[in-house]
């Protein structure tokens, strides 16, 4: 746990200092195996050595011993000045690696050893020449100053390292939080990081609008490997933390997640073993984690709010346009019907049979237009606002095409229709009414925007995983501009035409295709004319029919 052995700092093993720092910044999943070690190092480093850690003192005594062992054989050749230098060098080396106390011990022991072994008379603490007293005194002072300097330099480096490691750890979590898009993924990431860094279990409690806390449900997507036991926590106490808005420590550490206006939740962290109290440095780091998570949660909330605002604005726009268009498109035929009706009803006009027939036809046609419009509006609303569950079943494509043609038989009387379907088309899993509706709308569209006599071709093709239905004509083609525009609500092919309908037909086609997980697009044929392609995903079907076929033909 504790970096008692100074060598682990000064002489890096593969998992320390610089290379660790680099890894900490570089790896994507920083908290597995190697990461644990880094983080442990990072959080533990700032702690000071205990003042009376005796093995260090033993190591300290080795220095004067070794220095003396080297210096003694050299004494006949070296002057005493150089021997002093050797001792000061020893003190420096010792101070580089050991704490303050051992360093002082080295300084004193070195002075005594020099006095004993080298100052005449040798092998005695007596000093023959009083000049040497001055030498010994200066030697001790220099050694003490050096020891002190060395120790504080090392201390500073340790603090800098620790700070850097803390930044790396926070950065690793921040990066994961930044990628997460929802609150659930964010809390999961935070819990994972906190648990790893602080060797603890952790849980995030999210406060609702009234400030009531409830645990964030575990994220299903992370799998079993990441599932952690929940710490025991005191919900009432956590509730008080929400009110107070400050970090509290009981059996566990309760950290509030401060939002801009209110407390968004509480992280409960239980260090293992529970009794272990975290030092102030680690508590500060924990605060930083909590602040980071709170910020991210805030961001997620803002994003959600923005999305909700966008949707509601879009709906409001749709509603307004819908109302405007409907009121126009309903009022016009209504006034025609009311007018025609009153003409027929008034005896004083004495209409002849021909006129009556004309007015009667007009009433019927206008009423039919209205009904058609109403159906479209209702259908689109159902698809856009309603529960978008499909009532799908297996259907034969040729069957649906035939139905669409039959529905539009009268409308298409003046047009030539060609059906061009391969015989081996698979059954498709769709809601039949919607597909018939798409085809119907496309046929109706073709009849509206091409002159009579135009050929309308219906064809289909199966690709790898999708299926496409094509309604094409050899008419005048799409209006200029982006074809995608046609699928917007209330768009008409020609903006100032008197063609009936609010331009919902293609919007319905798109909504219906998308409900099926497909889409529709419009383009011009290479040889002229418009072409609409409906793409639908194909579901693989067990070959129930062919089984039967075998049995059926063998008989």
């Amino acid at each position, binding site marked *: 746990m504790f970096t008692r052995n100074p060598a682990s700092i000064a002489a890096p093993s593969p998992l320390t200092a610089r290379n660790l720092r680099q890894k900490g910044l570089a790896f994507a999943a920083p908290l597995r195996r190697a990461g644990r070690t880094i983080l442990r190092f990072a959080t533990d480093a700032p702690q000071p050595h205990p003042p009376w850690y005796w093995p260090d003192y033993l190591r300290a005594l080795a220095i004067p011993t070794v220095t003396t062992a080297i210096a003694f054989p050299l004494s006949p050749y070296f002057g005493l000045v150089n021997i002093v230098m050797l001792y000061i060098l020893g003190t420096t080396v010792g101070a580089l690696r050991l704490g303050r106390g051992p360093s002082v011990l080295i300084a004193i022991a070195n002075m005594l050893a020099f006095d004993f072994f080298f100052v005449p008379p040798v092998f005695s603490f007596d000093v023959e020449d009083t000049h040497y007293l001055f030498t010994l005194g200066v030697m001790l002072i220099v050694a003490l100053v050096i020891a002190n300097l060395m120790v504080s330099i090392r201390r500073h480096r340790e603090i800098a390292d620790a700070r850097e490691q803390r930044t790396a750890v926070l950065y690793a979590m921040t990066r994961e939080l930044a990628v997460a898009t929802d609150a659930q993924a964010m809390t999961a990431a935070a819990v994972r990081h906190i648990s790893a860094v602080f060797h603890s279990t952790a849980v995030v409690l999210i406060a609702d609008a009234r400030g009531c806390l409830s645990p964030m449900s575990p994220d299903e997507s992370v799998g079993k490997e990441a599932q952690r036991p929940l710490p025991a926590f005191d919900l009432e106490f956590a509730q008080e933390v929400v009110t107070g808005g400050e970090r509290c420590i009981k059996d566990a550490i309760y950290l509030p997640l401060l939002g801009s206006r209110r407390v968004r939740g509480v992280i409960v962290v239980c260090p293992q073993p529970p009794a272990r109290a975290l030092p102030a440095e680690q508590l500060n780091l924990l605060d930083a984690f909590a602040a980071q998570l709170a910020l991210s949660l805030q961001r997620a909330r803002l994003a959600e709010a923005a999305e909700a605002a966008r949707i509601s604005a879009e709906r409001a726009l749709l509603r307004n346009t819908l109302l405007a268009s409907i009121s126009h498109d309903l009022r016009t035929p209504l006034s025609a019907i009311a007018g025609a009706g009153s003409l027929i009803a008034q005896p004083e006009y004495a209409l002849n049979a021909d006129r009556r027939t004309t007015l009667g036809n007009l009433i*019927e046609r206008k*009423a*039919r237009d209205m*009904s058609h419009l109403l*159906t479209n509006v209702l259908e689109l609303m159902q698809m856009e606002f309603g529960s978008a569950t499909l*009532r799908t*079943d*297996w*259907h*034969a494509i*040729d*069957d649906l*095409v*035939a*139905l669409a*043609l*039959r529905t539009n038989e009268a409308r298409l009387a003046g047009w030539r229709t060609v*059906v061009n*379907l391969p*015989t081996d088309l698979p*059954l498709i899993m769709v809601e*039949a*009414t919607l597909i*018939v509706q798409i085809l119907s709308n496309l046929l109706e569209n073709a009849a509206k925007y091409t002159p009579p006599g135009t050929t309308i071709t219906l064809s289909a093709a199966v690709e790898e995983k999708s299926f496409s239905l094509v309604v094409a004509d050899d008419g005048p083609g799409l209006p200029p501009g982006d074809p995608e525009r046609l699928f917007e609500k209330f768009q008409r092919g020609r903006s100032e035409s008197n063609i009936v309908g609010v331009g919902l037909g293609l919007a319905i086609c798109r909504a219906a295709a998308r409900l099926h997980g497909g889409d529709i697009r419009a383009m011009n044929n290479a040889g002229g004319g418009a072409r609409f392609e409906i793409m639908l995903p194909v579901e693989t*079907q067990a070959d*129930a*029919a062919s089984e*039967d*076929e075998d049995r*059926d*033909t063998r*008989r």
Partner: protein
Amino acid sequence: MTEAMHLILIFEDDQAIQNVLRVLFEANGFRVVIAETAARGENDARLHRPDIVVVDLGLPDRDGLNVITAIRAWSPVPIIVLTARTAEAQRLAAFENGADDYVTKPFSAPELLARVRAIVRRHVRGELPMGMLELGDVSIDLGRRVARRRDGRDVRLTPLEHRILETLARHGDRIVTHAALIKEVWGPHRNDSRALRVYIGSLRRKLEIDPARPKHILTELGVGYRLVIDAGVEPGG
């Protein structure tokens, strides 16, 4: 065939539609009885013994579906549903309760009249005898299970195809629901419409002049199939 004495009983609570229907049917030689509530109508049905019944599903006192069931309990009189309800499930429920046809509001008067006439004609003619069936240029001997084109070529139908055709023919040109068809052809333990759809497709390719635009084996979306036997061709046999 004349409908001079045919009596039509209409369950409809809307005054305007009552008027339209009365004018339409009286102008075409029907006697018309209109009931505004389910209770009145059921009474009228027993009293007048109508030749055909038109039911609006949205009646003030009871759901029209109940009316269908109640009448079916004692009478085979043809019933046409006339309603603003367009959902597939509603159509299916009406047919399963015993309705013969389904017309949605707003309806076209000529179309409604045509459907009523077709059903009355069929009902008067009675169930088709199992015998020869003429579909376009193919004649099928259901008893001997042989089908032949007008030009003398044989049309080979598989046993299952035969059974489907036979079942559809037995119901005249009334709709047969998917469930009923599957039950009659495959038995009660089958619950998969896929094979049925495949077989209908192959039947069409063999029997229809233009399989892409079938004229005889028609799909009723979400409900089932209906066999339309050529008008004017009386089944021999």
